[in-house]
């Protein structure tokens, strides 16, 4: 009995030895910075103003400024539009493709790898690809439309269309993720109910609606939440395609924080906006983990 206890104690010590270094480094590179970020969000930190990082005289000023700032509120609205449309688009395309590719032939396996590409490409390459498509001089799209007698102006330099151009590029970049998730979910649907539905004479649409969908709806929800969170981080596309413009038409909140911090040197204010973003993301992550209790849980992509 005593030896069993000492073996357990030793096991415990051994295991912790493997865990502690990683958690220490993870603390240093994640919790440390986030704490600092939260603290600096309470100051008017500006690298060009000495001592501004320790000025706590008006701790809530940055947050009050943000909530009263039209440009910040506009960035939230742009974010909502971008997120909503891209997530719905990706779910629709991803689900459609998954239903089409949900067979285990060798050919389809190869095709699936092809569909995967946009998501693993370096985001900067995705941005270059779409910059080319949206630049009239060299764009095959503009050339085709001109040839068909419907020439259009650059979508990116028009405030009404720029965001939708970004939406198209973002949807293209991330539909493979929803497709993968939907494929995984579809392949976990048990065979018996599908066979039963076939015997009962259900057509494809009925089978999808009444048999497959109930099995995959939870994955569907978690996938949508994942994409929603990631859409908050959209950066390279906006940086390369529009730089937040024209005007403020494509300036999402993440981009707004970037501009305030690194272009205008409002580090304290930028920190406050970034802190608000983290709060939003934490809330959404928590929702995912709540969902995750039953069957599907959340964490990673590329």
């Amino acid at each position, binding site marked *: 009995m005593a030896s069993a206890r000492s073996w357990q104690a030793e096991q415990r010590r051994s295991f912790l030895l*493997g865990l502690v270094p990683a958690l220490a480094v993870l603390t240093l590179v994640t919790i440390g910075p986030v704490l600092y970020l939260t603290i600096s969000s309470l100051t008017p930190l500006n690298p060009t103003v000495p001592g501004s990082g320790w000025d706590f005289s008006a701790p809530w000023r940055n947050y009050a400024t943000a909530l009263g700032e039209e440009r910040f509120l506009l960035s939230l609205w742009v974010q909502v539009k971008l997120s909503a449309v891209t997530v719905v688009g990706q779910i629709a395309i991803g689900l459609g493709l998954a239903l089409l590719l949900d067979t285990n032939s060798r050919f389809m396996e190869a095709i699936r790898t092809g*569909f995967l590409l946009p998501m*693993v490409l370096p985001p900067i390459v995705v941005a270059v*690809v779409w910059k080319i498509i949206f630049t009239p001089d060299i764009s095959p799209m503009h050339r085709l439309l001109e040839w068909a007698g419907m020439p259009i102006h650059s979508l990116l330099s028009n405030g009404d269309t720029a965001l939708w151009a970004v939406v198209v590029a973002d949807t293209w970049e991330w539909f493979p993720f929803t497709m993968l998730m939907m494929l995984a979910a579809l392949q976990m649907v048990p065979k018996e109910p599908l066979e039963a539905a076939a015997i009962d004479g259900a057509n494809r649409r009925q089978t999808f609606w009444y048999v497959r969908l109930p099995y995959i709806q939870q994955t569907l929800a978690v996938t949508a939440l994942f994409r929603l969170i990631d859409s908050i981080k959209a950066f390279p596309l906006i940086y390369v395609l529009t730089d937040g413009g024209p005007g403020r038409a494509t300036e999402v909140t993440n981009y707004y924080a970037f501009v305030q911090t690194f272009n205008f040197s409002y580090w304290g204010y930028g920190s406050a906006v970034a802190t608000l973003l983290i709060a939003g993301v934490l809330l959404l992550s928590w929702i995912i983990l709540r969902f995750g209790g039953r069957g599907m849980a959340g964490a990673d992509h590329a």
Partner: protein
Amino acid sequence: MRRKRHTWTSNIVAAVLLLLLLSPLLWMLQLSFRPADDVIAEQLLFRPTLENYTALWTGTFPQSFINSVITSGVSTVLSLLLGVPAAYTLARFRFRGDRHVALWILATRMAPPIAFTIPFFLAFKFAGLSDTLTGLILIYLTFNLALVIWTMRSFFAGVPRSLEEAAWIDGCGIWGTFLRVVIPLSTPGLAATGILCFILSWNDFFFALILTRTKAMTSPVAIVNFMQYEGWEWGKIAAGGTLVMLPVVIFTLLVRTWLVRGLMAGAVKE
């Protein structure tokens, strides 16, 4: 018979859709082989040339490519060394608060990069790590370490315990067993996780854009510089883009099945 025809139609539909969806990418590819004076020409056919690629060798691009290889490679190795034992512990050992660790790791993966960039920028300035490869390697740990812990934990959870218990009874310590029994069983998972880490660091644009200037510049940033400082050299931009995506595409084709698991890691409970 009917079933067969149905398969054929969906195969053809899938192939056509693939071609359609990848056409923007293919367009960039052909642009990279076009002669410089032919980029905005009207005709579709052209005499392919490598001049855009050779032009890349004369500038800063080769150095940035090497920088990308070093930062991604070193960060991957470090994350595996630190993260794999931690993942094993989390898979095999129950302790109070392991659910909080899970939330922490998930949140790290979710947090917008700007939240890390602001503090790191100031800290790097203070510590003399701005524009260094070491600095980039360090910041890549923020996402790589979390990824390794998360994916390998679910991988280890799927490795049967009985073998390890047998080794323990034979007097092999926990980490001895880990090295001799668990690691050899886990090479596919380790390889996939390593490749995924490499791709994530390789693909990074935001951190490199802000935390480097010239010395430690990585190739994604170098491509953007072609757009800003040297006029619009589309052929060169397309060639640079093609080179940067090449390693990623090769890795994807090589280890598709395992990569898919890693890409969805955690999103689907195993």
